[in-house]
């Protein structure tokens, strides 16, 4: 208990489960479905126990077809429902890409506001769990570039709960990407009751004066480790957890870079045409005269994510972040 608020230790998995639980209880129009979501409770157990609690009409297994999972959500939303669908892994969203870009993102515009698409498409993404091919990629750009949808990535159990509740309550469709590498790696006290975190707001996790470090998802923790290294060298870093890939919280970023004059961006997705490019452009456009060094992108290679034995080459280490911090400081 903290100021009258019941707290509970949660992992990201249990926090997401809890957010779904709260919304399923509160709003009869919310349903959750996808491959193995019902009886099994999801391959990562994110929806565990929810079918038992809410029934198989509200939390259920679908046949194996991603385009149908997303496409049927469009139909449900048109009739007033708020579907939360799960894609089993980041690499299996693509069959649904046409439904996402052609309908989920466009129905509201096409119908001039008549039909809203309060759909949440959740899926685990990112590397670091020694998985098979297609299970480790990060491709936030191919969603964030689509006009008409929002893209959210939490980095802690607390944020996962608060952001997912906002996502489900959003009248716009939300792609909700879950950094599976930290699904169970971080335990945190999270309020048991409902709360929400606004979509579109980054969070300054740590104040600093010398350099702005921007990260999200599983990279936040790596960034924090790099900051410890940098601190030993007397470098004072401001850490921003982006949280919302689109809309981007320009203001928080710009204010920070105006103060520090330097920026390093960290992301798992491939470097070229990635989110780092958009952030660099924003900084270039809005804080140009304050920049003392080029914005530095620390990102995945422009290669296919290697299978587990090669993944250590690909994965961004705290050392690599630190190395780039030094490089940017010395520019």
């Amino acid at each position, binding site marked *: 208990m903290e100021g009258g608020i019941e707290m509970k230790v949660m992992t990201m998995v249990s926090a997401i489960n809890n957010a779904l639980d709260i919304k399923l209880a509160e709003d009869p129009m919310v*349903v959750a479905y996808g491959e193995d979501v019902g009886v099994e409770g999801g391959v990562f157990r994110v929806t565990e126990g929810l079918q038992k609690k809410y029934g198989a*009409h509200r939390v259920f297994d*679908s*046949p194996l*077809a991603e*385009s*149908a999972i*997303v*496409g*049927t*959500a*469009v*139909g*449900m*939303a*048109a*009739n*007033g*429902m708020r*579907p939360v669908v799960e894609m089993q892994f980041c690499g299996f969203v693509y*069959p649904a890409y*046409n*439904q996402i870009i*052609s*309908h989920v993102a466009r*129905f*509201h*515009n*096409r*119908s*001039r*506001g*008549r*039909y*809203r698409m309060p759909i949440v498409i959740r899926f685990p993404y990112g590397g670091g769990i020694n998985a098979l091919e297609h299970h480790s990629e990060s491709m936030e750009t191919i969603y964030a570039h689509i*006009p*008409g949808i*929002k893209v959210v990535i939490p980095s802690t159990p607390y944020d996962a709960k608060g952001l997912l509740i906002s996502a489900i309550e*959003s*009248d*716009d469709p939300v792609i909700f990407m879950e950094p599976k590498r930290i699904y169970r790696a971080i335990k945190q006290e999270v309020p048991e009751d409902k709360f929400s975190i606004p979509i*579109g707001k980054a969070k300054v996790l740590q104040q600093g004066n010398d350099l702005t470090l921007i990260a999200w998802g599983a990279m936040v923790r790596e960034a924090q480790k790099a900051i410890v290294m940098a601190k030993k060298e007397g470098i004072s870093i401001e850490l921003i957890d982006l949280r919302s890939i*689109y*809309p*981007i919280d*320009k203001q928080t970023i710009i204010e920070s870079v105006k103060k520090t004059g330097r920026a390093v961006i960290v992301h798992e997705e491939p470097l070229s045409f990635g989110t780092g490019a958009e952030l660099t452009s924003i900084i270039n456009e809005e804080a140009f005269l304050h920049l003392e060094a080029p914005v530095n992108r620390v990102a995945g290679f422009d290669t296919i994510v290697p299978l587990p034995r090669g993944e250590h080459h690909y994965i961004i280490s705290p050392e690599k972040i630190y190395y780039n911090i030094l490089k940017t400081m010395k520019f």
Partner: protein
Amino acid sequence: MFSEFSPLEDKLFQVMDNDGNIVRPEYMPEIDGERLVKAYKDMLFARTADMMAVSYQRQGRMYTYPPNLGQEAIAGAMAVVMRENDWLVPAFRELGAWLAKGATLKEVFLYFMGYEDGTVFKNAKNILPISVPIASQYQHAAGLGYSIKYKNEDSVVYAVVGDGGTSEGDFSEAINFAAVWEAPVIFLVQNNQYAISVPFKMQTRSINIAVKAYAFGIPGLKVDGNDIFAMVKAFQVAQAHARSGKGPVLIEAVTYRRGAHTTSDDPTKYRTKEEEDAMAQTDPLDRLRKYLISQNLYDPSGEEELVAQYRKEVDRQFSEAENYAPYPLEDVFKYTYVELPDDLRQQQVEHEKFLKWKEALK
């Protein structure tokens, strides 16, 4: 009926022949004379509007338009059976069905003049906007079907796709989902024999489309789509099936796209005049007219006058559409999100600044 007209044997469900004779009276749906005349007139109105749309387009007063000529009985039948709370999930070639649902011609014209406003179908209940990505709308129909069961509503979904659309993965996925969910959806395929230039026999090797129902464990029926009676009966049976909780039905309406694919298309490149002429003999309006005359329900001598009247009405609505308000910049931004992101607002502001500067240049 489903077993009598088994698509496995490629049986065609037909009630009325090309000359307007009722050949299977036992399947003749009960429709009173007045309603039937209305159905004919609706089809005639739709055809008049459709043909005028083609000429407006030729005059450069509208953009690309997909003609309905020859396919009107399908919508005519839908108009008879669809209830207000039934959902229509259209593709893009169902003028009569949109009108039946309560869309106005003016809206349709607006759409093909390039306004999103034209696909809102404001006063039409339970209709989705026109869907261009082939077969993708079938998924929405399956989802609507789920929502109807979930919310304990009494509606049925009418989803439309073309013969070409049956090759898309979404076609199969959607029917499979709806079947597993036992959702009340009527999956209608307008088999007009062509997907742009590609003839049906190059689209699939299956003997017909109705037989594809076997892949999903649901009934399929191949119906003469130019026979309004057969279509009405088929829809009635399908609707009863769907409403009784037995799940979806697949209906193949065999018809012929007498016109071009769209106003940008030239069918002489890929089919013969002989074929077109032969198929003209199956024209759905002609058949219904013959029947009505044979039953003394309709006096064809008034038809010219009627068409003239319709032309006026079409022209009136077209003018209204032509005089529609210009498309404000605001509308480009307003609907992409329910909640306009700051970023987007700023893009609009920046653009307005540019426009002012440009204005000042002159």
